[in-house]
């Protein structure tokens, strides 16, 4: 009755085909991002390119996905900045409007829908995404609309040379610097055979290349460099490949998959008690709830960004009392403040106008460190140099910070990380 032979086969083919389709189009509208601020009242105003008088900041940050742990501090940074800007009188005399959306991760298509939503609401500056891979999927869409794409956390070296129409900026330093510091740290710790296990994406490959350069430049040897598929069901084969090479140190360039990879490393006898393991900004997080005590003890990691000052942390907590991580909060805050200052300096909220002044307000002029003070200077007609919480923020012509601070951290028995030292350096070297 049902079992007619060709039909079974048709079914199988259709099954395979539509499976492929679901795999691509997986991330439909669920996790629908909540707008924290009402849409701009003047949304019937002229197109964003010309500027509608209201600076609309769209946060495209991870509420879900591999980097969801970075979302809360980043949103809090943006929210705090918007709050302070509006308390100081807003931009061009009007309060800044903030729209929160989810960037998801590279496995889903959430970011692209979020960008559509932001562009429809006359967004002038998109703050995001956290993941370089996600930014790469939306950068064309954003910059083609004449909107500033401003990431607080992208570190892939690719963006330095990307054809972005001069609209892409970031407050996080390129991984050229982080890779150099991490490689140097590995060499300093005396590991002559090093394995790199990295995500197969723009961020992972970029940072892996920089670490490799730095380690082999300092006299160490990369014995195996493995990229993995972040969506894989398990990582045992990837770890087995590393095991075969018998390294003394492993640089683990991962996101949230770390919670799957670390048990696998431990299982195959490559735990932090046996080899030296290094984390990066993508996985340096508080794992006290994920692992039993002592699991990560001794693991070191690097994270771009200076120490978030205590009073800044207090202010962030007033915006989001549930915060436990501070990664990239200063960078998000600075990105928002810089955008507002640039809009004020350009006397327009249009994306292209903001972009034209961003490099200007970041360097060369009278120094100021918060929005109210900078705004006062701008109103006096002075040239300003905003020094932010994440560092001096001096943009190169490509829109990258030209110098930055990298923190080196180490995990304790509670699986929390604490700072050992901060190192500053110039990205170009």
């Amino acid at each position: 009755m049902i079992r007619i032979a060709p039909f079974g086969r048709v079914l199988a083919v259709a099954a395979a085909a539509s499976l492929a389709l679901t795999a691509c189009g997986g991330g439909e509208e669920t996790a629908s991002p909540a707008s924290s601020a009402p849409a701009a009242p003047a949304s019937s105003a002229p197109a964003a390119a010309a500027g509608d008088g209201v600076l609309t900041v769209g946060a495209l940050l991870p509420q879900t996905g591999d980097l969801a742990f970075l979302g809360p501090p980043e949103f809090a940074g943006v929210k705090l900045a918007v709050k302070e800007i509006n308390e100081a009188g807003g931009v061009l005399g009007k309060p800044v409007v903030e729209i929160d959306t989810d960037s998801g991760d590279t496995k889903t298509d959430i970011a692209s829908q979020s960008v559509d939503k932001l562009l429809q609401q006359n967004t002038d500056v998109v703050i995001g995404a956290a993941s370089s891979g996600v930014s790469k999927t939306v950068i064309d869409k954003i910059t083609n609309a004449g909107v500033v794409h401003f990431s607080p956390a992208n570190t892939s070296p690719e963006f330095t040379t990307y054809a972005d129409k001069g609209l892409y900026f970031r407050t996080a330093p390129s991984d050229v610097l982080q890779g150099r510091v991490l490689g140097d740290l590995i060499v300093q710790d005396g590991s002559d055979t090093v394995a790199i296990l990295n995500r197969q994406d723009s961020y992972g490959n970029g940072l892996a290349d920089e670490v490799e350069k730095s380690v082999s430049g300092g006299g160490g040897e990369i014995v195996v460099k493995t990229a993995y598929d972040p969506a894989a069901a398990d990582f045992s084969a990837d770890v087995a490949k590393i095991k075969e090479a018998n390294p003394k140190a492993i640089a683990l360039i991962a996101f949230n998959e770390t919670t799957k990879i670390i048990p696998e490393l431990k299982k195959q006898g490559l735990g932090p008690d046996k080899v030296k393991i290094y984390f990066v900004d993508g996985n340096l997080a508080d794992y006290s709830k994920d692992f039993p005590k002592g699991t990560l003890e001794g693991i070191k990691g690097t994270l771009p960004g200076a120490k978030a000052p205590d009073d800044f942390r207090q202010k962030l907590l007033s915006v989001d009392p549930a915060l436990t991580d501070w990664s990239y909060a200063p960078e998000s805050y600075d990105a928002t403040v810089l955008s507002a200052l640039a809009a004020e300096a350009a006397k327009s909220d249009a994306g292209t106008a903001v972009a034209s002044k961003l490099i200007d307000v970041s360097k060369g002029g009278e120094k100021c460190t918060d929005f109210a003070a900078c705004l006062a200077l701008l109103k006096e007609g002075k040239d300003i140099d905003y020094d932010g919480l994440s560092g001096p923020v001096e943009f190169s012509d490509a829109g990258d910070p030209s110098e930055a601070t990298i923190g080196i951290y180490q995990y304790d028995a509670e699986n929390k990380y604490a700072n050992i030292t901060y190192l500053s350096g110039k990205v170009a070297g």
Partner: protein
Amino acid sequence: MRRAVIAFTAFLGALFILLASPAWAEGESLRGTLQNQGQPVNGVKISVTSGDGQPVGEATSGADGKWEVQVPAAGSYKVTLDQATLPAGTVLKFKDRATLSVQVFEGNYRNVLFALASGDAAGVATPPDGGGSSAFWTRVAQLAFEGLSLGLIIALGALGISLIFGTTGLTNFAHGELLTVGAFIAFVLNSTFGLHLLIATPLAVIVAAGFGYGQERFFWGPLRNRKTGLVSMMIISIGVAMFLRYLLLFLFGGENVPYEQYVAQDGIKLGPVFTTPKSLIAMGIEIAVLIAVGLALTFTRLGKATRAVSDNPALAASSGINVDRIIRIVWAMGTAVAGLAGIMLGTTQILNFQMGQQVLLLMFAGVTLGGLGTAFGALVGSLVVGMFVQISTIWIPPELKTVGALAVLILVLLVRPQGILGRRERIG
């Protein structure tokens, strides 16, 4: 010293403790620590020349193995270790790397590493470990073991897909989510209600069975009674998959979460293979369940009835079998077994709202490879897929491992379209 003090101790894999170092941006230098198997090596001369051969400075490693040479500016330098000054029994691990070209960046020190090894006077380093071929075979054994482990989990999931397809003709794309749902039911019992995983697991399996029964009773059954076409039902199952997946995302968030027990166990060594106690127990449970289901299908009345419905529902109905009841039981069992697979996957890996989706493709590959609609085919097919996914990484990069499994699927179906254990179907 002009620069701040940096003290660190590191012997035999012990931790480094850096005391204080606001040191960068105070001038450039090259430095390093000479060690052989964790012991500092002192009295070794190291000289630095600039890129064009001008001597810059020299240093001799101290009692702690450390050396440091100030350089005048950022740039490229050549660092040479004088091999004649190495103590007897210590040689450079790589003889051609006595001179390194090192880039020093503005304001930063740069660490330089000379890898040392024990060796005789002739300078032949003795390899510290067994050598390449045994490491290779260890890896092969490890991968075969991992393949079995993955294959068993896929088999549990595939069993449900295969039985449901066999009895109703539905290709259920929501089956991956049934794994995830089972895993998260156990998670709720485990972490919200504080039940130990050993208690939460059987409870979750029972709840999952109820969920499967309810799905058939109130959703798929009525759809079938309304004569909804199989292709439409398949599309609906894709919708159900998305609904369940994102419902879980909404309820539990997008981050990986572990169960309360058995997280990050230390590895144990079984012959050449590393594993964890929890993996072994999980595999034991999986094998036991697979055998039990297999025996039930072969020997019990219910199992025979299931196979009869699977063969020909109309004939089964006319011979007195309550087809609807059988289908409901198949759904309940299929979902329960899928839920168990999800819990096992969550225990040995981690919980995530996409965990089922990540193995769905492999389950379909297993079912199709083994022969659509045959329970034992699904078992064999899944094991083949699991093994192939893992072992193929010896030749292909690990990020392509799923591709390898699907290539096998295509090849097998080209030769044997009905799958490994599938019967060629009669037409007419």
